[in-house]
């Protein structure tokens, strides 16, 4: 990236801003993402409020699986044009990449396209507004995605006959493997892991089978399924992540490190990767290597008490008791907050 920037700076000398923008847009279209990023950044250096550069940079970050940066960029753009539908949609989608349905929901609510209405209903479903989500999904044109989420809505309402009937429609419109996969997702999202496992096994999807086996606490089988997923597709980032994390949790950190390192390159925003890598290094007695990883994880996920706990342990191992004390104080504060939020008898 540094090299690309240096070369680009030489090229941009004497170029007008529209020319730099056009080159960056061309690079984005050709999927030359580092070059495109450098170009849009140069445009923004010259014109901080260049809407096109902000929007394209957001798209670029999303494509790079850097949703936190994408969110920040779209938010900057929306400060300039608060009601721009494309930006609202893209910002919502970036939140969804982080499973943040609560932040995404009001954004989709401001849009009226069928896609936005579907996404809004999904957010309602995932944030506990099950009845409203069901009503909204029932109004939408039937698609496999709508059948999928409608089935989930019925399961959450404990209306199993309607759930089963809706799932049956999936099998009518999709090949069996895809239908099994979507059915598995329904059961998985409803935390009915035994049913999910049966569906995923039938779908032949090793990644989802592995994830479900983790939820069922069948670690050895989960690791085997995830290894099969990686044998099918060695670049499957999600399989690398889950297998790496599982191995760390099973006290087998060495083989986890290359897997998780790959994930940090592909998904640099994912705090969990840094966390598990840091924990792996701690397990190997390498607190010095663990520390920057855990510090990154703590920056990305400041509200996650386990991250600060491992950070505290790393500081202890490095003989930095004052820093450890601060990290543990943060753990205690987060625990207190979580408990206070749950109090039902004020």
């Amino acid at each position, binding site marked *: 990236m540094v090299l690309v920037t240096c070369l680009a700076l030489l090229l941009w000398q004497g170029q007008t801003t529209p020319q730099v923008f056009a080159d960056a847009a061309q690079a984005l279209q050709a999927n030359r993402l580092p070059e495109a990023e450098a170009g849009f950044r140069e445009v923004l250096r010259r014109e901080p409020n260049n809407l096109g550069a902000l929007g394209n940079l957001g798209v670029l970050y999303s494509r790079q699986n850097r949703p936190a940066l994408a969110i920040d960029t779209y938010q900057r753009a929306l400060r300039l044009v608060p009601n721009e539908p494309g930006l609202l949609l893209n910002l919502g989608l970036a939140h969804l990449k982080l499973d943040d349905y609560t932040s995404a929901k009001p954004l989709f609510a401001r849009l009226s396209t069928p896609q936005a209405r579907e996404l809004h209903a999904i957010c309602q479903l995932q944030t506990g507004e099950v009845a409203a989500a069901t009503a909204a999904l029932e109004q939408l044109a039937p698609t496999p995605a709508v059948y999928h989420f409608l089935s989930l809505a019925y399961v959450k309402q404990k209306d199993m006959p309607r759930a089963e009937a809706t799932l049956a429609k999936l099998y009518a419109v999709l090949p069996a493997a895809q239908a099994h996969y979507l059915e598995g997702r329904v059961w998985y999202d409803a935390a009915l892991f035994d049913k999910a496992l049966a569906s995923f096994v039938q779908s032949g999807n090793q990644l989802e089978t592995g994830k479900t086996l983790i939820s069922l*606490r069948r670690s050895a089988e989960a690791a085997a399924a995830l290894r099969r997923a990686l044998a099918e597709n060695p670049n499957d980032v999600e399989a690398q992540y889950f297998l790496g994390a599982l191995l760390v949790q*099973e006290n087998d950190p060495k083989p986890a490190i290359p897997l998780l390192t790959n994930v940090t390159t592909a998904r640099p925003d994912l705090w969990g990767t840094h966390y598990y890598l840091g924990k792996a290094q701690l397990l190997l007695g390498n607190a010095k290597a663990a520390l920057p990883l855990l510090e990154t994880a703590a920056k990305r996920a400041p509200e996650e008490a*386990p991250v600060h*706990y491992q950070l*505290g342990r790393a500081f202890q191992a490095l003989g930095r008791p004052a820093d450890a004390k601060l990290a543990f104080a943060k753990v205690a504060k987060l625990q207190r907050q979580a*408990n206070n939020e749950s109090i*039902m*008898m004020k």
Partner: protein
Amino acid sequence: MKPQPKGKPSGLPFKSRFTDVAAAAGLTAPVIYGGVDRKDYLLETTGSGVAFLDYDNDGWLDLFIPSGARFGTNPPEAINRLYKNNRDGTFTDVTMKAGLARQGWACGVAVADYNNDGFEDIFVSYWGQNVLYRNNGDGTFTDVTKEAGLVLPGRHWTTGCTFVDTNRDGHLDLFLSTYVDFDPARIPKPGQNPNCNWKGIPVNCGPRGLTQGRFFLFRNNGKGVYSDVTKAAGLGEARAYGLTAIAADFDEDGWPDLYAACDSVSSVYFRNKRDGTFEEEALPRGVAVNEDGMEQAGMGLGVGDYNLDGHLDLFKTHFSDDTHILYRNDGQGNFTDTTKVSGLGVETRYVGWGAGIVDLDNDGRPDLFVASGAVYPEIEAKLPSYPFKNPRIIFRALPNGSFEELIDEAGPGIAAAHSSRGCAFGDFDNDGDVDILIMNMNEPVSLLRNDGDPAANWLKVLLTGTKSNRSAIGAQVRVRYGGRVQVQEVLSQSSYLSVNDRRLHFGLGAVKTADVEIRWPSGARQTLAKVEANHLLLVNETGGITGRLRPPFVR
């Protein structure tokens, strides 16, 4: 924490078998604790501890069983009970004669001679008012709570309670933990709140969502009167869902530290600063959470030296879908979670309560024990994989330092399914092994008689303090045998809200002599070389060995 595969059985024989002899021993009264088929309130779920004590100083363990109650119509038989050991394997209910009949929601029990008069007294924690019973020495007890200054203002749900000589003046202070601010009139009904559901099924609410309890420290002025020094001692700010309370010198500086297993939140560790104050240090010392930094539902505590390095380790039991946790102590009060490497990750099915680090087969390696039982009887009908009654669990120590789970292999008393809570470890039949007394919800207690390997050797030590408190609470005994060293400490509460035999028991395996080192709470030390195995050693703080008794330890 995910369960781990069990792996191949070791194939090594476990030479102890446990049989429930409660009915034959005359222990047939059920321990009433809330509803049988459904429990609308958290208070009905947590049950109580049990105690082994020798209230009449005849050398045979008697039993004290606290009782709960029932909302609505409380059965008249729902009373605390004292059973006298008849020295023939049976017990006689002497509750009425002893003056200990009392109804209410009793939770924990602590036993020690708080007034140093030679007789063991009983403290019982309650939802409501706690009670201190002074042993009159004639088979009767007197409620002295008020005159001892132990009435707590307001209504508390006290659970953990342990006598401890925090300032080493020879007089036993009292450390208490409370669970939640519980008012049945204000608590939502099952299903009314996200904290009142479990796996999608409406259940009683809590502890999450209820206001956390606190901790109390009462100092004994030496004349049988206590003052509340909680705030001055630095315990006033801590809040948690506190359950079992223990006191032991974990950092080996000669001063007892305090620890409480806490449900659903970080457990607490109060380091004794030797000036009458304490500092809460559970997180930096590694005993607040598990190695992932996750809070766990701490219930019971075993204290012992599982890895035979001469330092007191901790074993804490938790809710189902989580493992119990084993913490290794480095001798300076810093702990490492060794659950996975010790092989304990294999079991997450049951809710664990009573806990012990105890050598059950006298092979010289302390084993782990868990009394288990679910909390929601109404769940089983909908989720058969979560039965209300569960077997007990033994994690037997293997020669390689890890543990192997045994259930059926350890006898019918282990495999039998009950919804158990507290348990106590002690040798009720004075035959040289460790038996187990277990509280079962709305059933009679279990008394698991241990029938072990007669070839395996052991040593018991009973201490009497003179400068230190008479019960020797806080004394540490290190026994060296066959190249091993094992430490134990005299405690007045552990397991789950329970009290173990005050005679410390060391399995010795094939070894026939041991060296014994005693560190008294006063700081005095005694070393007893080449003590012959298979004896109960009676040791006085100033007088040294006053008796060496063979089973059945007749004085």
